[in-house]
């Protein structure tokens, strides 16, 4: 079997996160492979829909939970559109785990701050749960998450869960104008009964403002802290200067990049940013590393 041939995995759950975003849960069909499969938070895989192709998504489930893996996908192109036709029970392919990972062990006894925008929460969610599943090892955990509107928030059920924990500070926000709509979702997977959200009506009880603005207002301390940030390029571009102003060192800010990928193993030559291949030397980078790269991403 060559390195371009995927492992087969069954789709065991699909959750409609937003109108165009779904979370897929996959379980490997080969029992031995399923048992042995391990990865680190931040790594990605090449997910196949046979006939449509392969796409790169981060592994959105944490490495602390075994037996399955999850990815979160927005329909924008050929493969992700084909994923809209995938149902529970279908077979997909997976190659991975590829890439580097968040150095979670280095964050012990430190304050961990997560900042995410829109679907950028997916790769961050993996490391959030990785940290929460080892909660005692870390100091304060803060999550700042925002999207354009309530409808665009992903992982709503988990936002509720994080909100409910007293060892996590969650600051959630929507863009001005995005607070109109039902909050307080009751969600179930396709494997359950309810698909999608929209249970009890409730007013938005979070912030209203763009993520960079909310970050600035959130009274975050750079003292003994690391930041994990992921989101649309504009969110990252506007938030990094704010973090710098707040005193966060470049080496303490971690992000995960994406680039168009095909092989995932450093051979097809397309994902590089200068001498750095996102699939092999990334996708996790510190702000310090990004600043040293040619600005071609």
């Amino acid at each position, binding site marked *: 079997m060559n390195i*371009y041939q995927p492992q087969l995995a069954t789709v065991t759950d699909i959750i409609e996160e937003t109108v165009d975003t779904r979370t897929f849960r996959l379980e490997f069909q080969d029992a031995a492979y399923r048992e042995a499969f391990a990865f680190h938070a931040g790594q990605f895989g090449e997910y196949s829909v046979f006939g449509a192709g392969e796409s790169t998504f981060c592994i959105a489930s944490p490495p602390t939970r075994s037996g399955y893996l999850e990815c979160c996908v927005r329909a924008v*192109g050929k493969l992700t559109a084909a994923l809209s036709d995938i149902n529970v029970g279908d077979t997909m392919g997976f190659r991975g785990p590829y890439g580097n990972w968040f150095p979670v062990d280095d964050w012990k006894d430190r304050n961990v701050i997560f900042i995410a925008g829109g679907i950028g929460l997916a790769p961050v969610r993996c490391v959030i749960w990785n940290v929460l599943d080892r909660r005692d090892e870390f100091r304060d955990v803060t999550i700042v998450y925002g999207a354009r509107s309530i409808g665009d928030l992903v992982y709503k059920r988990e936002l509720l869960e994080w909100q409910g924990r007293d060892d996590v500070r969650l600051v959630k926000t929507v863009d001005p104008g995005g607070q109109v709509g039902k909050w307080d979702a009751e969600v179930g997977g396709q494997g359950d009964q309810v698909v999608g959200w929209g249970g009890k009506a409730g007013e938005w009880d979070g912030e209203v403002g763009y993520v960079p603005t909310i970050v600035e207002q959130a009274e975050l301390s750079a003292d003994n802290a690391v930041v994990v940030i992921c989101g649309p390029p504009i969110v990252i571009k506007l938030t990094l200067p704010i973090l710098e102003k707040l005193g966060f060192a470049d080496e303490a800010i971690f992000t995960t990049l994406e680039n168009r990928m095909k*092989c995932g193993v450093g*051979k*097809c030559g397309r994902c590089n940013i200068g001498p750095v291949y996102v699939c092999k030397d990334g996708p996790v980078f510190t702000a310090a590393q990004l600043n040293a790269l040619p600005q071609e991403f």
Partner: protein
Amino acid sequence: MTDVLFLSREQLAALVADLVAADTIVIGPARAGGPAIPGLEDRQQGVAKGAFGTLEYREVRSADELELGPGMPRLSLKQFFLPQNEKLFSWQQKGIAVEVQAVPTAFAPRVILGGKPCDVAALGIVDKVMNWDYQDELWNARRAATTIFALSCGVEDQHCFCTSVGVAPDSTKSADGLFTAVDGGFLVETTTDLGREFVDKHRARFAEPPGGAVEAGTAFRAAALAKVRENFSFNTERVHDWVENHFEDPFWATLGVRCNGCGACTMVCPTCHCFDIVDEEEGVGCGSRRRCWDTCQASKFTAHASGHNPRGDQIARYRQRVNHKFAIYPTKFGEVLCTGCGRCVRTCQMGQNIGEILVAIDEYAQKDTQ
């Protein structure tokens, strides 16, 4: 120092016949074949004229087809190790289950007779990326199945620059042996165990070199080396450093604006290896995943599904080509991703000239340090 043997033209014909009879695939430079239509000479405009002529590397069934002399085959040897399109696996839908059929990762034995040293040296350079942490079994298996004899080159024309990038007209990098044309046949040297085994297996075909042949061969090689050194040259380390440190230089704009983004340069290049992977349905519920040659010069190469394109214009794309070959690959793998064959210069119909570019960069680099 290996023994130098002699293979006469007659014995070469017999050797090829032996190989073909034993089902070993023989590949070498040959006249372009193909069906002809009465009254329609296979007249190839453009590229076919000039240094390319109508030679190409292909399988031959007899030594008559081999053209072991001057002339550069149109495409490099790359196609035999990274085919222009290659199946990676196929699948069959069975209800909602899927069955995947692997492709073979072992290949029938092949011999390349008369590869140009620049084309042969390219293989060892690409080996590095193909084995960077993950082993590309398809590439490696083809490499393992192939015995390669390079042919001492007499230097094509003024666009060759192999000596500037660590290759030479008689280089044996990545080769198992070297043929050098002399009167009546070829001097043959072996440089690897595989090459020695090959000669041992067919020892009867090889003889002691006739008087004067070794001297003639040495003279030919020395003359070729002198000739290519008369072409332009540049220092790869200076070029590497300049390219690495001048990402935003206005020089790139002067190159990118003329370029069409056609990608012909990358297709004919022996070291360019970038590929695309696509799924193709071949029937109801079945199909295969293939990889095929791709080019960093196409805008689609780095285009995200969202519409964002990190290399959104030809200036960025052309810079990437020079950057990848002369800065990035050397940084990562210690070798320049170029063997100085000059095909890109001869192929580019808009007159982009890598030699001119590298010499200019070297000059800028030297000015920088003054």
